[in-house]
C-alpha cells in the first residue's frame, strides 16, 4: 500500500476563485465612514484646542477700532502691526463689574508707557456698542479700543471671562496672562521688564 490517496492535493489544483469586484455601495459606505470619523476628529481637535499660554506666540487677529479710539492714526490694525511694542491686550465689557476697577489702572498705564513703546488695547467682549462707548466716556479712556467682532478674538484666545489680560512682548510672545483685574503694581513690574528686553 505505498499508493497515497489524493485528497488535499486536488484542492490546490482547483481553479482560483475570481476576486469579487469592488462594489460601488461598499466604496460609498467606507467613504462615508471615513468622512464621519474625519469630521468627528476635527471637532474633537477644535473643542480641545489649548488656549495660548505664557511663552507661546500670541495668535494674530484683526481689529476695527471704535470711532475715536484708534491706534497710531489707524482705524483698523492687526497684532502683527504692533510687533516691536509691548502689547497689553485687555478683554472687558461694560456689564462687567470687576472691569470698572481696572479700567482706570489701564488708562494710567497707557498714559505712563505709551511713548515708551507700549500699546494698551481694550477689546469689548459681547458688549453692546452704545454701552461700550458710554462706558469709555464715563471713564474718560483714551487708549485704543475695539469691539470683538464675531467674538473671533476672544475665541482665539479662549478667554474664560472678563476681565482677562494678555501681556505680549516685543517679539509677539505672551509673557503674562491675568485672569481677573490687573493692578498698578503688577503692570509697573511687568511692563518695564519687557521694555528692557
Amino acid at each position, binding site marked *: 500500500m505505498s499508493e497515497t490517496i*489524493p485528497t488535499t492535493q486536488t484542492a490546490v489544483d482547483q481553479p482560483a476563485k475570481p476576486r469579487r469586484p469592488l462594489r460601488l455601495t461598499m466604496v460609498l459606505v467606507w467613504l462615508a465612514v471615513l468622512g464621519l470619523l474625519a*469630521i468627528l476628529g476635527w471637532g474633537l481637535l477644535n473643542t480641545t484646542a489649548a488656549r495660548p499660554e505664557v511663552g507661546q506666540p500670541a495668535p494674530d487677529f484683526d481689529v476695527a477700532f471704535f470711532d475715536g479710539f484708534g491706534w497710531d492714526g489707524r482705524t483698523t490694525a492687526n497684532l502683527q502691526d504692533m510687533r516691536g511694542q509691548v502689547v497689553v491686550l485687555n478683554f472687558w465689557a461694560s456689564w462687567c463689574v470687576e472691569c470698572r476697577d481696572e479700567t482706570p489702572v489701564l488708562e494710567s498705564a497707557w498714559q505712563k508707557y505709551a511713548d515708551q513703546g507700549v500699546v494698551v488695547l481694550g477689546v469689548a467682549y*459681547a458688549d453692546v456698542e452704545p454701552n461700550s462707548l458710554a462706558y469709555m466716556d464715563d471713564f474718560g479712556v483714551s487708549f485704543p479700543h475695539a469691539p470683538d467682532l464675531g467674538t473671533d478674538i476672544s475665541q482665539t484666545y479662549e478667554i474664560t471671562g472678563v476681565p482677562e489680560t494678555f501681556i505680549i512682548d516685543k517679539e509677539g510672545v505672551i509673557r503674562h496672562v491675568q485672569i481677573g483685574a490687573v493692578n498698578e503694581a503688577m503692570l509697573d513690574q511687568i511692563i518695564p521688564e519687557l521694555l528692557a528686553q
Partner: protein
Amino acid sequence: MRKNVIRWLLLVLLLALLPVAVHAQDDISDDEVNEVAKDLYCPVCESTPLDVCPTQACADWRELIRTKLAAGDTRQDVLDYFARQYGDGVLANPPRRGISLIVLWVLPVLIVLLGGLLFFRLLRGMRVAPTAAGGPLPNPLPKGEGAPTGPLPNLFAKGEGAPTAKTGDESLDDYIARVERDLKQ
C-alpha cells in the same frame, strides 16, 4: 389760494400723525423683544436662550433688540446684526453654511443614509441565507484525479472486512474498509 390750503392741511395732518408714529416706535413690548430674543443665545452663560437669561449682558442685548425693532428693523435684520457682531454661535438656528452645514445638516443625512444602506444589506443577507440552507448540500470532496466521482459511500453501514459500498477505485475501497474497521474497534 386753493393750493395753499391743501398744503396747510397736509402739514397739519403730518404733525398730527407724528406723535402717533413716535409712540408706535417706542412701544415695543417685552413679548415682541422676546420673540426675537428666543432665537438668540446668551453670550456669557452657555446654552441659555436670551429671552430667559438673567445676566446683565443679556439684559443689554434685549434692550438693543428693542432699540432696533423700534428703529424699524425686521426680526431677520436683528438676527443678522447679532450674527455679524457676535458670530453665528449666538443664533439658535445657525445658517446653513460652512461647518454648521456639515455638522447640522449633511452629517445627520449621511448617517441616516448609511444606516439605511447597512439595514438593507442586512435584510438582503437574511433573505438569501434560508434558501442556501434549504438546498442540496454541496459535495465536500473536491473534484479531481483520484477523487470519487459517484455518490458518497456510506461509511457507517454494517459489514465485515470489506467496504459496504464500492467506489470502483481499489485503493480507495481498501482505505474505506480500514477506516470502517477502525471505527468498529
